[in-house]
Structure formats: C-alpha cells, structure tokens
C-alpha cells in the first residue's frame, strides 16, 4: 500500500508528511469516497470557521493552519486577560487588553506562510445564516454552553435537504482541568448538541434560604455577598466580575459573614472562582482536545481515514486525572430533541405549581437549561419575557396555577428563549401525582 502514489500539494516539500497520509489510501480508507489526487487542492480551497480564540481556539488555529487548510475565519468577542497567558500561547503580556481574534489571527498568519486567517471581533449571534453558509466546516472551542447551543441550532436550521452544501459538519471541543471531550455533529443526521445537553447538567444552585439564614460553607457566604448583599448595598452601579475592586468588595462582605458564622475557608481566590464560575484550564488538556477536533477535521475534509460522527462513534470523552482514559461512543439522536427532533419532549410538572414556578424551573432542568423562557400553549400566550408591554400584560399569569390556566396533561407547550432566537422548544406536559 505504501507504494501508492503521493499527490503533492502546491508546496510539496513543506507538506511532505501530510501529503503522504491525505493523498494515498491506508488500510482503513474507504476507496468509494477517497480520491487522493484532488485532496490537497480541495482542502486549500475550503473555508473553515473557528469559533472561539481562547484556550482551545489558539490551538485550533495552529492545528488547522498546519493541516493544509488555507482559508480560516475566527470569531471571538473577548479581549486578552493576564490569566489567559498560562495556556493561550498566541498571546503575550503586551497583548493584554487587545482582541483575541485579531491577535491570534495575526500571529498564526505570520508563523505559517500562505495561510489566510480572517478575524471577527464580535459575537456569533451578530452573523446571519448567509455568513455561516460560506463555510464547509465549523470547529468550536467555547467555554459557554449557550453559544454552543446557538450555533448548533443555527446549523441544524440551515439544513436544506435539496442542497448538499447546506450540511455543515460541526466539531466541538470542551475542557475542564485534566478532562475534556471532542464530538462531531452532522446536523440533522447525527445526535446534536441539544440532544446531548443532559451530558452537561448545570451545577445545582444553593437554595436561597441557605444563603439567607443557614450558611455552612465558604461558598454560601460568597453567594450571599454576590446575590443578597450586593443588591442591598449597590456599592457600584453594575457588577463587573473582572474588576478586582468589585471582587474585593464581595470578598470582604463574604469574609464578614463567614466570621459571624465561624465558617473557615473564604479567600479572594475562592470568591473569584465562585462569582465568575471559573473552570480550571491548562495548556496540555487544550492541546489534547483541540488536536482531537482538528484530526477529525482533516479526516472529514480528505476522507483519508474513517472519522468520528458517521456511522457509529461521534463522541470522545477524555480524562487525564487517573492514568489516561478515553471513552469513544455513539451518542444517539433523540426523536424529542427540541432542535433536530420531530417530537415534543416530556416535561414533568406538578399541576399545583404556579406558572411562575414552571418558568423558573426551566433554568435548572438538565434537559432544558433555559434562563429566560417565554411560554405559549396552542395559540394562547402564557408568558412573554419581552417586549415590555407584553411582559406586563402576561405577568399576572405567573401567580396562577397551571390547572387554573387551563393546562392539561398531555398538552403541548412551546418555549422560546432570547438565547436561541429561531428555536421553539416543544414540550408535552406530564403531571405528577394530583
């Protein structure tokens, strides 16, 4: 097999190693879909979108530039912070305060000759479907589940069965400490990010009464300062979690409360961690996960070897805490996925709840995780978060019980959330014991 011909790229000496693999078949290559001859040229012409220029994003840009892709775009609205420098290796001390997308793009363009990287210093939501339609591949390195869900919903909605180009493979990576995951999504064909939402359940919130009257942990004192004391005292017009003065204020209030209750363990670092929900991150793990993502990108773009996504495994879990461990499996598509499925998803509720209690419950439900839900039921508006006039008009419903609003077992409700402009989450009510 190794005697098969190599079809060199435009700079054959430079891409020697890559061309050996991507332009000639190996023992696992599917000859039906592989043609080595056109691969190098086709990859150079592809447009790839990277979302996020942070810990994973820096790695993704480097990896794609050294994988034979030449037209790469990157979106990130953040600026560089000093705490990024332990892993976001395209940034230096002097870059602090500048746009991540712009600095990262400039660095990789300079280092890897012939690669064009177009930075977008803005939010993903600032672009419409026409923008996303120009790419052949989307690779995500995000720390926010909301942004992932948004791009996932957008790419699923863009699929037009008549137009093969409308299927944009989505490769997504995420890390936490020594752990991470990489997954490949073929919108509408495989399980999507919304199908997999329960793999990333939100942390259970501490009950308000614990914060208000019976704190036991340093975290309770910090949340008290964050949620209750800040609102009472309003020491600054708006809480800026990146402003050390604001964190110091919260820290001192938390410390006072901890003293009052004899609770040890409140520190500045813990305060910052709780308030900003800081996830530990290191270069090594980002390196593993971003490389796993880009390795799939190369295989998808060249067909030189089987890739994750189709037909079987589509999800790789990685952990380096205890030895080195991966679990690579097939996450099944869900028929009742609000984004890519056809059926309404069951929603277990207590019929004696008020509508307000139901609205509040959406944030913590692993299968929903909607922070600002608006609700409709078969032609009837139950509650709308905006515009203000409609919110005011529907607000009285919040105090009414579900049964009193005429809601019945088995009824379908539609839920929208400003974080997912186009998606209507369909749920079917299932009442608990009457």
């Amino acid at each position, binding site marked *: 097999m*190794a005697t098969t011909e190599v079809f060199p790229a435009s700079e054959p000496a*430079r891409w*020697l190693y890559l061309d050996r693999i991507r332009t000639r078949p190996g023992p696992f290559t599917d000859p039906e879909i592989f043609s080595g001859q056109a691969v190098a040229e086709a990859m150079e012409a592809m447009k790839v979108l990277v979302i996020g220029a942070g810990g994973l994003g820096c790695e993704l840009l480097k990896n794609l530039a*050294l*994988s034979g892709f030449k037209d790469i775009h990157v979106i990130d609205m953040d600026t560089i912070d000093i705490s990024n420098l332990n892993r976001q290796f395209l940034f230096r001390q002097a870059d602090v305060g500048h746009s991540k997308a712009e600095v990262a793009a400039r660095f990789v363009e300079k280092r890897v000759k012939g690669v064009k990287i177009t930075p977008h210093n803005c939010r993903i939501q600032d672009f419409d479907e026409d923008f996303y339609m120009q790419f052949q591949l989307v690779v995500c390195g995000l720390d926010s589940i909301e942004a992932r869900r948004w791009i996932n919903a957008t790419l699923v909605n863009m699929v037009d069965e008549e137009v093969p180009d409308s299927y944009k493979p989505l490769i997504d990576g995420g890390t936490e400490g020594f752990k991470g995951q990489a997954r490949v999504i073929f919108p509408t064909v495989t399980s999507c990010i919304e199908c997999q939402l329960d793999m990333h359940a939100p942390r259970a919130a501490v009950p308000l009464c614990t914060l208000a009257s019976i704190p036991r942990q340093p975290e309770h004192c910090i949340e008290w300062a964050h949620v209750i004391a800040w609102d009472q005292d309003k020491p600054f017009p708006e809480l800026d979690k990146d402003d050390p003065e604001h964190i110091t204020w919260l820290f001192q209030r938390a410390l006072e409360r901890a003293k009052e209750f*004899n609770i040890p363990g409140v520190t500045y670092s813990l305060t910052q961690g709780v308030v900003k929900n800081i996830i530990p991150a290191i270069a090594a793990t980002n390196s593993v996960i971003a490389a796993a993502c880009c*390795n799939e990108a190369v295989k998808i773009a060249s067909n030189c070897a089987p890739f994750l996504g189709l037909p079987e*495994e589509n999800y790789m879990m990685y952990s380096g805490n205890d030895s*080195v461990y991966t679990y690579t499996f097939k996450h099944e598509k869900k028929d009742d996925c609000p984004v890519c499925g056809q059926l309404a998803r069951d929603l277990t509720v207590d019929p004696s709840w008020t509508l307000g209690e139901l609205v509040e419950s959406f944030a913590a439900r692993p299968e929903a995780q909607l922070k600002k839900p608006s609700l409709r039921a078969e032609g009837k508006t139950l509650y709308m978060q905006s515009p203000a006039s409609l919110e005011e008009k529907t607000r009285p419903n919040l105090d009414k019980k579900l049964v009193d609003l005429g809601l019945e077992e088995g009824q379908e409700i539609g839920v929208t959330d400003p974080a997912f402009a186009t998606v209507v989450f369909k749920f079917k009510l299932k009442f608990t014991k009457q």
Partner: protein
Amino acid sequence: MTEIIMSQTPPILHRPSEKERKYDRQLRLWAASGQAALESANILLVNSGAGTVGAETLKNLVLPGIGRFAIYDETQVSEADLGVNFFLDEASLGKSRSKSLTELILELNPDVQGTWYPNEELKTLDSLLAASPVFTIILYTHPISPEQLASLEAYGQKHKTPLVAIHSAGFYSYFQVNLRGAFPIVDTHPDETATTDLRLLGPWPELVSFADELTKDIDGLDNFEHGHLPYVVILLHYLKEWKVAHDGKYPATFKEKTELRKIVQAAARTNNPEGGEENFEEAAAAVVKTVVVPSLPSGLKEVFEYEHTDPVEQRSGFWLIADAVKQFYEKHQCLPLPGKLPDMKAESKVYIQLQSIYKAKARKDAAEVLQIAQAAPGGDLIDPAEVDLFCKNAAFVKLINATSGAATAVKISKADRLKSAADREFAADETAALSLSPFSLLPIYLALQATAHVGESSASSFDADSILASIAAQVPGAEKQERVIQAAQEVARAQGGELHNVAALMGGIVAQETIKIVTKQYIPADNTCVYDGIGGRVQVLRL
C-alpha cells in the same frame, strides 16, 4: 462545647499577585505546592525524527511555568519541518533545530529558562549528560539511535531519573514511561464524591454524645429543629435504635440497609408545610454509601505490602509515614480519619460544631501517626504537614509501578513481558466483537516500535513487510494477525512523518503525565499509552 478554630489569617489586603493571576487557572488544579515543584524542575528533551511531538510537549510545559529545559536535537531545520512544527519559521530554515525551537518556545513564557544542544562546548549527548545538573525527567522522541538510548538508560538508572519515550507517526502515537522503581503518590485528587468517610459504624465518644444530645427527644423537637438535624446525626440515631433491636449488630447486608433506609424515610415528618423533610431525604439517600464498615483500599494495601529493596528509599518521608499509618491501622482496625464533612442541610451552628468534631478527631489521629513515625529511625525529620496530607488522603494513596521494586518478584525481561501482553491482548480481541469492547491498540505499539530506530533516510525500512518481519522477531506469530498487518500498513504509509494533530494530541497527554510526575499529584499512567487517531481513542497497557 467544641472548640472553633479560625485557621485563616485575615487576608483582607491580599489581592493576587501578578504571578498568581497569570497562573490562576492552573493553581486551582495543583495549588502552590504543585507550582513550586514545576518551577524547580529541569527537563531534558532529546528530540529527533520529525520532532513535532517533542516541541508540542515542551510548549505545554513551558506555558504553565516549568523551571528550565534543555533541548538536544542534532537536526537542521528542513522545509518539511515548517509544514508540521509550529515553533519553527522561515528564518529557521537550514539552522540548528534545537536552537530555533528553544528560541521560539522561550517566547511563550519569560519565567522559563531554556538552553539548546549540541552547541560549541557540548557537542554530544554524552557530554551534555555528563556536564549538566541532574535532570528531573527526560523526554525523548523516536526514532532514536540505539547508542543514544543506551546513554539515556544508563543516566536514568544512575540518577533515578524518569524517562519518557514518545513516538508519533501518521495517525498513530504512543508514550512509554519508565519511573525507575515504585512511585508513590499521596495527593491523588480523587473525585469529591468518593472521599466521604463518616465512620457511622465506628463513632467515637465525642460524636456519639453530640448526636445523642440532639436526638434524645427527637419526637419532641419542633418542626424547624427536626427539619434541620444533620443527616449524620439522623443516621447515628437510627443506627443506635437498629442495634438495640438487632442484638447489638449493625445493618450489614444490602437488604438490611434497604430496611434501614425505609425506617429513616418513614421517620420524616410530612405533616409540615413543606410536606416532607429534606434532611431526612438526604439521610435516606446516604444510607447505602455511608453505612459501611471501613475496609483497606487496594491502593493502600499495595503500599502496606510493598517489599523494599532500597534502604535509602525506605527511610524517605513517604515510607516512614506509610509504615506509621500501617501500625495505626493494625492497632485501630481503621485508617486515620480524613475529617472532611460534606455539606448537608443543618443550622449553621450545629453544622460547624459537627465539622469541628470531625476535624478534631482527624487532628488527633494525625498526631498519633506523627508520634509513631517520629519514633522510627530517621523519623525526627518528618514534616508534620506531610503526615496531615497522608492521613487526609490515606484511602486514595497510590503506588505506581509497584511490582518493579519487589524483592521477591521474579524479574521478567522486557521482551517476555511484551510477549505475554500480546497473548493477553490478542486473546481479548477474539471476544471483543461479542463483548462490544474495542480492539486492543497493542498492534499500533508493535508497528510503531518496529521503526523506533529507523531514520527518515532509510525509507525501505518503512515498508509493511519490513515492519512485520521486525514484529515477528519480537512476538512470533503476531505478524499474522490481521490488525497487526493493518497497523504495519498504516505506519508504512507515514514513513516516519508526523501529522501535526496527532503530535499535538500526544504532546498534550505527555505534558499532563510530566506534570503529574513532577508535582506528584493526580495519577500517572502505568506505563504505556497508545493513541489511535483513526478510531479516536487511547489505551493504556502495562508493558
């Protein structure tokens, strides 16, 4: 009734330093102690072959602030390097690869020092090894010449320096670590949920009297008090009642524990406004996990049974403390109490009192262990903080590479170990399809390893037949296995060339392992980890 100790000094004015801010996201993983270990480490990378996996590993160690590194690399930068290695640029073409790599990697972190070899003074690997201060760990990439490998092995043997071999070609890669003897880790960072140790079946007098006091009139408590009894106290109360009703015996079987759970559930008040009690729900949910007889975890058992071959090692802090803990265990039939109390519904004051009872007992146990350890020869130098850490983590202490030092263990040659691993792995593959488990990645290791000393220039050695012949010489019969043949063909396809992504992935894993070995935190892999970039997974093999 219980002492309250506020251990924190008021850190009012302590805002994080510039360095703490820069390293914030990693200090949350390995704390200042881990960072200090990293900063005092001195790493040697012997780089060869396509050379990207070594550079990527080093990148991931320089960013978090490893103390210093040296790169030994005899190659000149070629055009092919620029297509795969990010830490070389146009200006490096034709120059010493170790110099260019060192310069561009040093840009990543001004806190780190780096040097490159061969240079004017030290022209060979042997002269470098002879002249340098002792290295903390040595990483080398394949293909490496047998002579250089022998030098590194000898150095590792002499200085007890861990060696890590790394090989990456095409979609395949592996690393193999040689830790030089048994490698104990105390700070293993187990999952929070696994660490709860409440001693409900062996409560000590202070805990008993605290629980009795709160529950002596449990039915007379008002709804607030009843609904805020900590679940530890609830369980102690109903365990006591259970014992009275069962001839002084605690619930032992799963069935008995289920029964206890039902008793606890039934004891919850439902005639209150909430229609139930959260603390009783917590208590019921905790029965199966916390009503347990303490047993000796397998990791610690291995430590206790370890036979020393090296008297110097035996007098190290770790082993003196381990021996003291063993004596403590033999005397009390339980380990020192870790002392951590999970959060549970309770009034602040009651919870803090209960927490203090657990902490006080943990301190008492640790003091006893310290006393035993200090009485041993050489024990006067024991650091009490090290004893505390050991006692807190005792159940999760782990000995990596445990068998290597055992005096009685039959020394098996590396070649024989490989053969028996092959037998085991190929046998498992026979049933892999039935048991839905993935195929062994040992064929990838065999195929890569067959080219461990083959340079890019000797292209003919990269055909699948040569690779299979080399495998046949090591593990006779393996060359006929279909998956071994496929792996050989895949390795032949790469001809020693790296794919950037595969090198970057392995560079990430090796950096994680290096960090774990240097900081002695988390658990390093023992001892070989193979990556398959086609199937997208890894397998750890003990070879």
